């Protein structure tokens, strides 16, 4: 099936096509690009740096941090103290617990002189 040939007759469209063909339409774009080219370059560099930082961080997290331990220094191990207990330790405790204070038990106080007479103080 033959493709029908489209003929553009709209004057405005013809004008735009003419500008495109001559490159006139790109002049403002080229001008803006020339004006802001250093800004764009700066943004590009910052973006590349940020991307590099993110990638570096991810890589560092995946790699385990090597642990450096000092070499073993030979030390003298204190000898194990064995708590020797004699069968007679309880007797020693009994002697230690002996109450040497007197009177033990305390002697209670009593009134031996109970009567109904007036007490003279």
């Amino acid at each position, binding site marked *: 099936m033959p493709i029908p040939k489209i003929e553009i007759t709209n004057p405005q469209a013809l004008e735009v096509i003419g500008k495109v063909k001559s490159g006139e339409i790109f002049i403002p774009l080229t001008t803006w690009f020339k004006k802001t080219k250093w800004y764009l370059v700066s943004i590009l560099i910052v973006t590349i740096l940020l991307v590099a930082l993110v990638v570096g961080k991810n890589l560092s997290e995946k790699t385990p941090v090597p642990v450096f331990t000092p070499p073993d220094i030979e030390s003298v191990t204190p000898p194990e103290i064995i708590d*020797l207990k*004699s*069968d*007679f*330790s309880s*007797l*020693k405790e*009994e*002697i*230690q617990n*002996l109450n*040497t*204070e*007197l*009177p*033990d*038990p305390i*002697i*209670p106080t*009593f*009134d*031996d*002189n*109970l*009567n*109904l*007479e*007036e007490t003279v103080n």
Partner: protein
Amino acid sequence: MKLFVKLFLVTLTLLFFSTATTTVFADAKSDYEFQYSRYRQNYIEYSILKKDFLANPTLDNQQKAVLAAKQTLSSRDLSKANFAAYLLDLCQEKQTNYAPIKPLLDSLRSARAFFFSEAEKSKAIVTPADLASFTEDYLINVVPHNRSFRTGILACKISQLVRIQAQSKNALDVILPKLATPLSTPIQTRIDDLQLLGNKINDTIDTFTDKLYTEEEIGNIDNEYYFTGKIETIKKIQTLQLKWIDGLIDIDLNYAHS
């Protein structure tokens, strides 16, 4: 059948009384504490009622005061009797059979009997005159029995010290067969030293006990500082006993083998 029932009942009764007697004997301290708290309550009541009677000497107030005095007397003498029993229990639980303190224990027994008897006697008090007469006699007779508490306390302490001496001697008798024979000279010296120290402690206890019966000490018995010098002697004996047991434990740990 009837015979079996009778036998069963008799056995039950005997069992009940034997248990009850043991409980009473074992609880001399709680009996004393109970009677002493009763005495304190009764004494407060007696003091208030006596004051009322002296301020307002009516027959009613007199009867109330005499009754309160009677109750106080009874609880006082029961407290004292039970305190003597408590001290006797304390001394006897050590089971030392140390003859030199026997007179002190006899004094406590005599005091216990005297105070029980006085508590019983106080029941006959009815009038203020009875009360006055009772107290007059009591003040004359009570002195040696009150003193027996002081010497009884010392008897208990001596009993404890003697008990420790007996246990120490037993400990040495246990150790000796465990030592390698023939005994080396250093070990023999240490054992000789222990025996010498043990004898020294025994002598100190004997001297301490004998001194209690001297006229000077008996005359000093009511003194406020009666116990002061004795505390020092007991501490000295305790220190010697500790030194002795340390020596024995050292031999046990280093030379004896089980």
